[in-house]
Protein backbone atom coordinates (compact mmCIF):
# COMPACT_ATOMS: atom_id res chain seq x y z
CA UNK A 1 0.00 0.00 0.00
CA UNK A 2 1.71 3.29 -1.06
CA UNK A 3 1.93 6.03 1.59
CA UNK A 4 0.43 9.41 0.61
CA UNK A 5 2.93 12.28 0.57
CA UNK A 6 2.22 14.54 3.54
CA UNK A 7 1.67 18.25 2.71
CA UNK A 8 4.46 20.27 4.33
CA UNK A 9 4.11 23.64 2.65
CA UNK A 10 1.79 25.29 5.18
CA UNK A 11 2.29 28.71 6.74
CA UNK A 12 4.98 31.43 6.49
CA UNK A 13 2.71 33.45 4.19
CA UNK A 14 1.06 36.09 6.43
CA UNK A 15 -1.61 38.26 4.87
CA UNK A 16 -3.17 41.56 5.90
CA UNK A 17 -6.79 41.66 7.02
CA UNK A 18 -8.34 45.11 7.31
CA UNK A 19 -11.37 43.76 9.19
CA UNK A 20 -9.12 42.14 11.81
CA UNK A 21 -7.24 45.43 12.27
CA UNK A 22 -10.41 47.50 12.71
CA UNK A 23 -12.05 44.82 14.86
CA UNK A 24 -9.05 44.67 17.21
CA UNK A 25 -9.01 48.45 17.72
CA UNK A 26 -12.77 48.66 18.22
CA UNK A 27 -12.69 45.66 20.57
CA UNK A 28 -9.99 47.26 22.73
CA UNK A 29 -11.93 50.54 22.88
CA UNK A 30 -15.11 48.62 23.84
CA UNK A 31 -13.25 46.73 26.59
CA UNK A 32 -11.80 50.00 27.85
CA UNK A 33 -15.26 51.59 27.96
CA UNK A 34 -16.76 48.53 29.70
CA UNK A 35 -13.92 48.53 32.24
CA UNK A 36 -14.45 52.24 32.98
CA UNK A 37 -18.27 51.92 33.19
CA UNK A 38 -17.92 48.98 35.56
CA UNK A 39 -15.58 51.00 37.76
CA UNK A 40 -12.53 48.76 37.18
CA UNK A 41 -10.57 51.69 35.68
CA UNK A 42 -10.47 54.99 37.63
CA UNK A 43 -11.34 57.85 35.28
CA UNK A 44 -8.85 60.22 36.95
CA UNK A 45 -6.04 57.95 35.72
CA UNK A 46 -7.59 56.81 32.43
CA UNK A 47 -10.84 58.49 31.38
CA UNK A 48 -13.26 56.35 29.34
CA UNK A 49 -13.43 56.68 25.53
CA UNK A 50 -16.81 58.43 25.75
CA UNK A 51 -15.34 61.15 28.03
CA UNK A 52 -12.42 61.62 25.62
CA UNK A 53 -14.81 61.85 22.67
CA UNK A 54 -16.89 64.43 24.57
CA UNK A 55 -13.77 66.47 25.35
CA UNK A 56 -12.79 66.32 21.68
CA UNK A 57 -16.24 67.52 20.66
CA UNK A 58 -16.06 70.51 23.04
CA UNK A 59 -12.56 71.36 21.79
CA UNK A 60 -13.79 71.21 18.21
CA UNK A 61 -16.90 73.37 18.61
CA UNK A 62 -15.08 75.93 20.77
CA UNK A 63 -12.39 76.32 18.06
CA UNK A 64 -9.61 75.56 20.52
CA UNK A 65 -8.63 72.35 18.76
CA UNK A 66 -8.08 74.12 15.45
CA UNK A 67 -6.11 76.89 17.17
CA UNK A 68 -3.63 74.35 18.54
CA UNK A 69 -3.74 72.00 15.57
CA UNK A 70 -3.12 74.73 12.99
CA UNK A 71 -0.07 75.95 14.92
CA UNK A 72 1.27 72.40 15.10
CA UNK A 73 0.57 71.64 11.43
CA UNK A 74 2.36 74.79 10.32
CA UNK A 75 5.47 73.88 12.32
CA UNK A 76 5.28 70.26 11.18
CA UNK A 77 4.87 71.21 7.53
CA UNK A 78 7.68 73.76 7.40
CA UNK A 79 10.10 71.71 9.51
CA UNK A 80 9.48 68.44 7.68
CA UNK A 81 9.65 69.97 4.21
CA UNK A 82 12.87 71.85 5.05
CA UNK A 83 14.54 68.75 6.53
CA UNK A 84 13.34 66.61 3.63
CA UNK A 85 14.46 68.98 0.86
CA UNK A 86 17.95 69.37 2.33
CA UNK A 87 18.11 65.69 3.27
CA UNK A 88 17.16 64.42 -0.19
CA UNK A 89 19.62 66.86 -1.80
CA UNK A 90 22.42 65.82 0.51
CA UNK A 91 21.54 62.12 0.16
CA UNK A 92 21.73 62.41 -3.62
CA UNK A 93 25.10 64.13 -3.33
CA UNK A 94 26.35 61.33 -1.07
CA UNK A 95 25.05 58.68 -3.45
CA UNK A 96 26.43 60.30 -6.60
CA UNK A 97 29.75 61.97 -5.87
CA UNK A 98 32.76 60.36 -4.22
CA UNK A 99 34.21 63.73 -3.20
CA UNK A 100 31.17 64.46 -1.00
CA UNK A 101 30.38 60.92 0.12
CA UNK A 102 32.90 60.41 2.92
CA UNK A 103 32.88 63.98 4.33
CA UNK A 104 29.07 64.17 4.52
CA UNK A 105 28.65 60.65 5.87
CA UNK A 106 31.24 61.37 8.59
CA UNK A 107 29.18 64.37 9.74
CA UNK A 108 25.92 62.41 9.50
CA UNK A 109 27.37 59.48 11.46
CA UNK A 110 28.58 61.85 14.21
CA UNK A 111 25.36 63.88 14.53
CA UNK A 112 22.64 61.33 13.75
CA UNK A 113 22.77 59.48 17.10
CA UNK A 114 22.33 62.68 19.15
CA UNK A 115 18.79 62.77 20.63
CA UNK A 116 17.45 65.87 18.91
CA UNK A 117 15.28 66.79 21.90
CA UNK A 118 18.53 67.47 23.79
CA UNK A 119 19.30 70.15 21.23
CA UNK A 120 16.07 72.11 21.78
CA UNK A 121 17.62 74.38 24.47
CA UNK A 122 20.55 75.06 22.14
CA UNK A 123 18.20 75.90 19.28
CA UNK A 124 16.28 78.24 21.60
CA UNK A 125 19.56 80.06 22.29
CA UNK A 126 20.37 80.18 18.56
CA UNK A 127 16.95 80.91 17.08
CA UNK A 128 14.99 82.34 20.03
CA UNK A 129 11.96 80.99 21.88
CA UNK A 130 9.65 81.60 18.86
CA UNK A 131 8.93 79.46 15.83
CA UNK A 132 12.54 79.29 14.59
CA UNK A 133 13.78 76.96 17.31
CA UNK A 134 10.85 74.56 16.95
CA UNK A 135 11.09 74.38 13.16
CA UNK A 136 14.88 73.96 13.37
CA UNK A 137 14.43 71.05 15.80
CA UNK A 138 12.03 69.32 13.41
CA UNK A 139 14.14 69.99 10.34
CA UNK A 140 17.28 68.77 12.08
CA UNK A 141 15.55 65.59 13.22
CA UNK A 142 14.15 64.89 9.74
CA UNK A 143 17.35 65.75 7.87
CA UNK A 144 19.62 62.89 9.00
CA UNK A 145 17.31 59.91 8.41
CA UNK A 146 16.39 61.43 5.04
CA UNK A 147 20.07 61.66 4.03
CA UNK A 148 20.62 58.03 5.04
CA UNK A 149 17.46 56.76 3.28
CA UNK A 150 18.18 58.70 0.08
CA UNK A 151 21.86 57.73 -0.08
CA UNK A 152 20.89 54.08 0.51
CA UNK A 153 18.26 54.33 -2.23
CA UNK A 154 20.77 55.76 -4.69
CA UNK A 155 23.29 53.05 -3.78
CA UNK A 156 20.66 50.42 -4.52
CA UNK A 157 19.87 51.66 -8.02
CA UNK A 158 21.31 48.88 -10.21
CA UNK A 159 24.59 50.10 -11.72
CA UNK A 160 23.60 48.27 -14.90
CA UNK A 161 20.78 50.76 -15.45
CA UNK A 162 23.14 53.69 -15.04
CA UNK A 163 25.63 52.11 -17.48
CA UNK A 164 22.72 51.63 -19.88
CA UNK A 165 21.91 55.33 -19.65
CA UNK A 166 25.56 56.23 -20.23
CA UNK A 167 25.76 53.86 -23.19
CA UNK A 168 22.88 55.74 -24.82
CA UNK A 169 24.73 59.01 -24.26
CA UNK A 170 22.31 60.45 -21.68
CA UNK A 171 23.60 63.52 -19.84
CA UNK A 172 24.38 63.35 -16.12
CA UNK A 173 21.25 65.41 -15.41
CA UNK A 174 19.09 63.06 -17.48
CA UNK A 175 20.57 60.02 -15.75
CA UNK A 176 19.82 61.50 -12.33
CA UNK A 177 16.31 62.56 -13.35
CA UNK A 178 15.24 59.48 -15.29
CA UNK A 179 17.21 56.67 -13.64
CA UNK A 180 18.59 57.56 -10.22
CA UNK A 181 15.67 59.47 -8.70
CA UNK A 182 12.94 57.02 -9.76
CA UNK A 183 15.16 54.11 -8.72
CA UNK A 184 15.79 55.62 -5.29
CA UNK A 185 12.17 56.68 -4.80
CA UNK A 186 11.01 53.53 -2.94
CA UNK A 187 13.75 54.04 -0.33
CA UNK A 188 13.05 57.78 -0.12
CA UNK A 189 9.34 57.16 0.48
CA UNK A 190 10.14 54.51 3.10
CA UNK A 191 12.28 57.18 4.74
CA UNK A 192 9.28 59.52 4.73
CA UNK A 193 7.39 57.04 6.93
CA UNK A 194 10.18 57.20 9.49
CA UNK A 195 10.78 60.94 9.28
CA UNK A 196 7.13 61.93 9.65
CA UNK A 197 6.93 59.90 12.87
CA UNK A 198 10.16 61.49 14.11
CA UNK A 199 8.80 64.92 13.17
CA UNK A 200 5.60 64.41 15.22
CA UNK A 201 7.63 63.27 18.27
CA UNK A 202 9.93 66.29 18.00
CA UNK A 203 7.02 68.64 17.39
CA UNK A 204 5.37 67.64 20.67
CA UNK A 205 8.68 67.81 22.56
CA UNK A 206 9.51 71.26 21.17
CA UNK A 207 6.01 72.57 21.91
CA UNK A 208 6.19 71.25 25.46
CA UNK A 209 9.41 73.14 26.08
CA UNK A 210 8.46 76.53 24.78
CA UNK A 211 5.08 77.21 23.20
CA UNK A 212 1.71 78.62 24.11
CA UNK A 213 -0.11 77.07 21.16
CA UNK A 214 0.20 73.66 19.61
CA UNK A 215 -0.97 70.16 20.50
CA UNK A 216 2.18 69.52 22.59
CA UNK A 217 1.61 72.67 24.63
CA UNK A 218 -2.07 71.79 25.04
CA UNK A 219 -1.29 68.24 26.27
CA UNK A 220 1.29 69.57 28.75
CA UNK A 221 -1.08 72.21 30.04
CA UNK A 222 -3.90 69.64 30.47
CA UNK A 223 -1.51 67.33 32.33
CA UNK A 224 -0.46 70.13 34.69
CA UNK A 225 -4.15 70.65 35.54
CA UNK A 226 -4.85 66.89 35.97
CA UNK A 227 -7.38 67.37 33.14
CA UNK A 228 -6.98 63.83 31.82
CA UNK A 229 -10.00 64.05 29.46
CA UNK A 230 -8.36 66.89 27.50
CA UNK A 231 -4.89 65.37 27.91
CA UNK A 232 -6.04 62.15 26.22
CA UNK A 233 -8.06 64.11 23.66
CA UNK A 234 -4.79 65.78 22.64
CA UNK A 235 -3.07 62.40 22.45
CA UNK A 236 -5.90 61.06 20.26
CA UNK A 237 -5.43 64.04 17.95
CA UNK A 238 -1.71 63.19 17.66
CA UNK A 239 -2.52 59.56 16.97
CA UNK A 240 -5.03 60.51 14.26
CA UNK A 241 -2.49 62.95 12.81
CA UNK A 242 0.05 60.11 12.60
CA UNK A 243 -2.52 57.84 10.95
CA UNK A 244 -3.48 60.49 8.39
CA UNK A 245 0.16 61.15 7.54
CA UNK A 246 0.85 57.40 7.17
CA UNK A 247 -2.25 57.05 4.98
CA UNK A 248 -1.10 59.98 2.84
CA UNK A 249 2.33 58.41 2.35
CA UNK A 250 0.66 55.12 1.48
CA UNK A 251 -1.39 56.90 -1.19
CA UNK A 252 1.74 58.61 -2.47
CA UNK A 253 3.52 55.24 -2.70
CA UNK A 254 0.59 53.77 -4.57
CA UNK A 255 0.54 56.68 -7.00
CA UNK A 256 4.29 56.85 -7.59
CA UNK A 257 5.32 53.22 -7.20
CA UNK A 258 2.46 51.52 -9.02
CA UNK A 259 5.02 49.85 -11.29
CA UNK A 260 6.29 47.58 -8.45
Amino acid at each position, binding site marked *: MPDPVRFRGRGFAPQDNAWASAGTLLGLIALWQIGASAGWIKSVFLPPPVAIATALWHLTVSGELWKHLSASLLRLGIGWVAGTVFGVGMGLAVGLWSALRSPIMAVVAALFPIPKIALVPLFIIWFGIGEGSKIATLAFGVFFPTVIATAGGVDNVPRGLIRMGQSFGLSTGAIVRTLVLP*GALPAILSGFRVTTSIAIVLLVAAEMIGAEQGIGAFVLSAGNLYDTDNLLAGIVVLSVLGLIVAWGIGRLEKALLG*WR
Partner: protein
Amino acid sequence: MTGLRLILNNISHAYRDLTVLDDIGLTAEPGEVLVLVGPSGCGKSTLLGIMGGMLRPSGGNVSVQGNVAEDCLNPLTYVFQDFSLLPWRTVAGNIALPLEARLSRQARAERVAEVLALTGLTEFAKAWPKQLSGGMRQRVGIARALAVRPACLLMDEPLSALDAQTRDLLLDEFSSIIARAGTTTIYVTHNLSEAVRLGQQIVVLSRRPGRIRATIRIDRPIAGRSARDPDLLEIEENLWRMIRDDAAAAERERVDA
Protein backbone atom coordinates in the same frame (compact mmCIF):
# COMPACT_ATOMS: atom_id res chain seq x y z
CA MET B 1 25.56 48.54 -46.65
CA THR B 2 25.18 51.07 -43.86
CA GLY B 3 27.06 50.98 -40.59
CA LEU B 4 30.50 51.76 -39.33
CA ARG B 5 33.80 50.00 -39.69
CA LEU B 6 35.00 49.24 -36.15
CA ILE B 7 38.74 48.79 -35.78
CA LEU B 8 40.54 47.45 -32.71
CA ASN B 9 44.31 47.87 -32.53
CA ASN B 10 46.40 45.90 -30.03
CA ILE B 11 43.78 46.02 -27.27
CA SER B 12 44.98 44.81 -23.88
CA HIS B 13 43.20 45.06 -20.59
CA ALA B 14 44.00 44.19 -16.99
CA TYR B 15 42.09 44.47 -13.73
CA ARG B 16 44.96 45.34 -11.38
CA ASP B 17 47.42 42.45 -11.87
CA LEU B 18 44.98 40.21 -13.70
CA THR B 19 45.42 40.44 -17.46
CA VAL B 20 42.13 39.60 -19.17
CA LEU B 21 42.80 40.65 -22.76
CA ASP B 22 46.07 40.59 -24.62
CA ASP B 23 46.88 42.16 -27.97
CA ILE B 24 43.48 41.96 -29.65
CA GLY B 25 43.33 43.34 -33.16
CA LEU B 26 40.30 42.98 -35.40
CA THR B 27 38.09 44.85 -37.81
CA ALA B 28 34.33 44.61 -38.20
CA GLU B 29 33.35 45.73 -41.67
CA PRO B 30 30.32 47.98 -42.26
CA GLY B 31 27.11 45.98 -42.06
CA GLU B 32 28.95 42.84 -40.95
CA VAL B 33 27.93 40.64 -38.04
CA LEU B 34 31.05 39.82 -36.02
CA VAL B 35 30.56 37.20 -33.33
CA LEU B 36 32.92 36.89 -30.39
CA VAL B 37 33.06 33.43 -28.84
CA GLY B 38 35.27 31.89 -26.20
CA PRO B 39 35.17 30.15 -22.85
CA SER B 40 33.73 31.79 -19.73
CA GLY B 41 35.96 34.51 -18.35
CA CYS B 42 37.98 35.00 -21.55
CA GLY B 43 37.13 38.70 -21.65
CA LYS B 44 34.38 38.77 -24.31
CA SER B 45 32.16 41.17 -22.40
CA THR B 46 35.16 43.25 -21.36
CA LEU B 47 36.14 43.58 -25.01
CA LEU B 48 32.59 44.62 -25.91
CA GLY B 49 32.71 47.23 -23.13
CA ILE B 50 35.94 48.58 -24.59
CA MET B 51 34.51 48.64 -28.13
CA GLY B 52 31.61 50.87 -27.08
CA GLY B 53 33.67 53.22 -24.91
CA MET B 54 32.28 51.93 -21.62
CA LEU B 55 35.69 50.68 -20.47
CA ARG B 56 39.08 52.29 -20.97
CA PRO B 57 41.56 49.68 -22.26
CA SER B 58 44.92 49.31 -20.53
CA GLY B 59 46.54 49.33 -23.96
CA GLY B 60 45.68 49.80 -27.62
CA ASN B 61 42.85 51.78 -29.16
CA VAL B 62 39.45 51.49 -30.78
CA SER B 63 38.46 53.58 -33.77
CA VAL B 64 35.53 53.85 -36.14
CA GLN B 65 35.46 54.71 -39.81
CA GLY B 66 32.62 55.65 -42.09
CA ASN B 67 29.69 58.00 -42.22
CA VAL B 68 26.89 57.90 -39.73
CA ALA B 69 23.36 58.52 -40.98
CA GLU B 70 21.85 61.89 -40.08
CA ASP B 71 19.07 60.35 -38.02
CA CYS B 72 21.47 58.23 -35.95
CA LEU B 73 21.30 59.38 -32.32
CA ASN B 74 23.81 56.96 -30.80
CA PRO B 75 26.28 55.36 -33.21
CA LEU B 76 27.52 52.62 -30.85
CA THR B 77 24.52 51.11 -29.11
CA TYR B 78 24.37 48.22 -26.65
CA VAL B 79 21.82 45.48 -26.18
CA PHE B 80 22.22 44.05 -22.69
CA GLN B 81 22.14 40.50 -21.39
CA ASP B 82 19.87 41.48 -18.47
CA PHE B 83 17.69 43.72 -20.72
CA SER B 84 18.34 46.78 -18.48
CA LEU B 85 14.76 48.00 -18.68
CA LEU B 86 13.42 50.61 -16.30
CA PRO B 87 10.70 48.88 -14.25
CA TRP B 88 8.98 52.24 -13.62
CA ARG B 89 8.44 52.90 -17.33
CA THR B 90 6.11 51.21 -19.77
CA VAL B 91 7.42 49.48 -22.87
CA ALA B 92 6.91 52.66 -24.91
CA GLY B 93 8.51 54.74 -22.13
CA ASN B 94 11.58 52.53 -22.10
CA ILE B 95 11.99 52.78 -25.85
CA ALA B 96 11.53 56.55 -25.73
CA LEU B 97 14.21 57.03 -23.05
CA PRO B 98 17.21 57.56 -25.37
CA LEU B 99 15.11 59.77 -27.66
CA GLU B 100 14.15 62.28 -24.98
CA ALA B 101 15.73 65.73 -25.29
CA ARG B 102 16.88 64.75 -28.78
CA LEU B 103 13.65 64.54 -30.76
CA SER B 104 10.42 66.50 -30.67
CA ARG B 105 7.47 64.84 -28.95
CA GLN B 106 5.89 63.95 -32.28
CA ALA B 107 9.08 62.64 -33.88
CA ARG B 108 9.68 60.59 -30.73
CA ALA B 109 6.19 59.07 -30.84
CA GLU B 110 6.61 58.22 -34.53
CA ARG B 111 9.95 56.53 -33.98
CA VAL B 112 8.68 54.58 -30.97
CA ALA B 113 5.67 53.40 -32.99
CA GLU B 114 7.96 52.38 -35.83
CA VAL B 115 10.27 50.18 -33.73
CA LEU B 116 7.33 48.76 -31.78
CA ALA B 117 5.91 47.57 -35.10
CA LEU B 118 9.31 46.28 -36.26
CA THR B 119 9.71 44.16 -33.14
CA GLY B 120 6.08 43.06 -32.90
CA LEU B 121 5.44 44.97 -29.67
CA THR B 122 2.75 47.43 -30.77
CA GLU B 123 0.02 45.93 -28.62
CA PHE B 124 2.35 45.88 -25.58
CA ALA B 125 3.25 49.58 -25.75
CA LYS B 126 1.54 50.37 -22.46
CA ALA B 127 2.60 47.20 -20.61
CA TRP B 128 5.03 47.33 -17.67
CA PRO B 129 8.25 45.28 -17.95
CA LYS B 130 7.14 43.09 -15.01
CA GLN B 131 4.17 41.98 -17.10
CA LEU B 132 6.37 40.67 -19.91
CA SER B 133 8.19 37.36 -20.38
CA GLY B 134 11.98 37.33 -20.67
CA GLY B 135 11.79 37.06 -24.44
CA MET B 136 9.43 40.02 -24.70
CA ARG B 137 11.66 42.09 -22.43
CA GLN B 138 14.63 41.44 -24.65
CA ARG B 139 12.54 42.49 -27.64
CA VAL B 140 12.00 45.78 -25.84
CA GLY B 141 15.78 46.01 -25.36
CA ILE B 142 16.25 45.49 -29.11
CA ALA B 143 13.51 47.99 -29.94
CA ARG B 144 15.13 50.60 -27.69
CA ALA B 145 18.48 50.01 -29.37
CA LEU B 146 16.99 50.26 -32.87
CA ALA B 147 15.09 53.43 -31.97
CA VAL B 148 18.33 55.45 -31.95
CA ARG B 149 19.15 54.14 -35.45
CA PRO B 150 22.57 52.84 -34.45
CA ALA B 151 25.47 52.49 -36.83
CA CYS B 152 26.85 49.63 -34.77
CA LEU B 153 24.97 47.29 -32.43
CA LEU B 154 26.92 45.81 -29.53
CA MET B 155 25.05 42.80 -28.19
CA ASP B 156 26.26 41.19 -24.97
CA GLU B 157 24.88 37.64 -24.78
CA PRO B 158 21.37 38.98 -25.45
CA LEU B 159 19.76 35.55 -25.38
CA SER B 160 21.61 33.88 -22.53
CA ALA B 161 19.03 34.77 -19.86
CA LEU B 162 16.24 33.12 -21.85
CA ASP B 163 14.99 29.55 -22.08
CA ALA B 164 15.99 27.42 -25.07
CA GLN B 165 12.69 27.71 -26.95
CA THR B 166 12.46 31.48 -26.58
CA ARG B 167 16.12 31.71 -27.59
CA ASP B 168 15.49 29.86 -30.85
CA LEU B 169 12.46 31.97 -31.67
CA LEU B 170 14.24 35.25 -30.92
CA LEU B 171 17.33 34.17 -32.82
CA ASP B 172 15.26 33.95 -35.99
CA GLU B 173 13.84 37.41 -35.32
CA PHE B 174 17.28 38.85 -34.53
CA SER B 175 18.71 37.60 -37.78
CA SER B 176 15.93 39.18 -39.84
CA ILE B 177 16.03 42.45 -37.83
CA ILE B 178 19.82 42.69 -38.10
CA ALA B 179 19.71 41.88 -41.82
CA ARG B 180 17.05 44.53 -42.42
CA ALA B 181 18.73 47.21 -40.28
CA GLY B 182 22.05 46.57 -42.02
CA THR B 183 24.07 47.87 -39.09
CA THR B 184 27.46 46.58 -38.14
CA THR B 185 26.83 44.16 -35.29
CA ILE B 186 29.17 42.78 -32.66
CA TYR B 187 27.53 39.82 -30.98
CA VAL B 188 29.05 38.21 -27.89
CA THR B 189 27.94 34.68 -27.07
CA HIS B 190 29.15 31.43 -25.62
CA ASN B 191 26.50 29.59 -27.63
CA LEU B 192 28.17 28.21 -30.77
CA SER B 193 24.86 27.51 -32.48
CA GLU B 194 24.00 31.22 -32.22
CA ALA B 195 27.49 32.05 -33.46
CA VAL B 196 27.19 30.11 -36.72
CA ARG B 197 23.58 31.17 -37.21
CA LEU B 198 24.41 34.89 -37.08
CA GLY B 199 28.12 35.34 -37.64
CA GLN B 200 29.77 36.45 -40.86
CA GLN B 201 33.07 36.78 -39.03
CA ILE B 202 33.51 34.59 -35.94
CA VAL B 203 36.40 35.52 -33.68
CA VAL B 204 37.43 32.80 -31.24
CA LEU B 205 39.13 33.99 -28.06
CA SER B 206 41.38 31.80 -25.92
CA ARG B 207 40.87 31.49 -22.18
CA ARG B 208 42.26 34.21 -19.92
CA PRO B 209 44.15 36.23 -20.92
CA GLY B 210 41.91 36.41 -23.99
CA ARG B 211 43.84 36.35 -27.24
CA ILE B 212 42.51 35.81 -30.75
CA ARG B 213 42.82 32.13 -31.39
CA ALA B 214 41.12 31.91 -34.75
CA THR B 215 38.95 33.91 -37.11
CA ILE B 216 36.38 32.09 -39.21
CA ARG B 217 34.42 33.69 -42.03
CA ILE B 218 31.06 32.46 -43.25
CA ASP B 219 30.37 34.06 -46.60
CA ARG B 220 26.65 33.39 -46.69
CA PRO B 221 23.90 35.90 -46.05
CA ILE B 222 22.37 35.56 -42.59
CA ALA B 223 18.87 35.41 -44.02
CA GLY B 224 18.00 31.84 -44.93
CA ARG B 225 20.49 30.28 -42.56
CA SER B 226 19.40 27.48 -40.25
CA ALA B 227 21.43 26.16 -37.34
CA ARG B 228 20.81 22.69 -38.81
CA ASP B 229 22.52 23.47 -42.15
CA PRO B 230 25.27 20.85 -42.62
CA ASP B 231 28.01 23.40 -43.36
CA LEU B 232 27.09 25.42 -40.28
CA LEU B 233 26.97 22.28 -38.15
CA GLU B 234 30.47 21.43 -39.32
CA ILE B 235 31.75 24.90 -38.43
CA GLU B 236 30.06 24.62 -35.04
CA GLU B 237 31.79 21.29 -34.47
CA ASN B 238 35.16 22.85 -35.41
CA LEU B 239 34.53 25.76 -33.06
CA TRP B 240 33.69 23.38 -30.22
CA ARG B 241 36.88 21.40 -30.82
CA MET B 242 38.84 24.66 -30.55
CA ILE B 243 37.11 25.85 -27.41
CA ARG B 244 36.45 22.60 -25.52
CA ASP B 245 39.79 22.27 -23.68
CA ASP B 246 39.82 25.99 -22.81
CA ALA B 247 36.20 25.84 -21.59
CA ALA B 248 37.00 22.86 -19.35
CA ALA B 249 40.10 24.60 -17.97
CA ALA B 250 38.12 27.82 -17.38
CA GLU B 251 35.47 25.84 -15.51
CA ARG B 252 38.14 24.20 -13.32
CA GLU B 253 39.64 27.64 -12.59
CA ARG B 254 36.22 28.89 -11.52
CA VAL B 255 35.75 25.94 -9.15
CA ASP B 256 39.25 26.44 -7.71
CA ALA B 257 38.56 30.13 -7.14
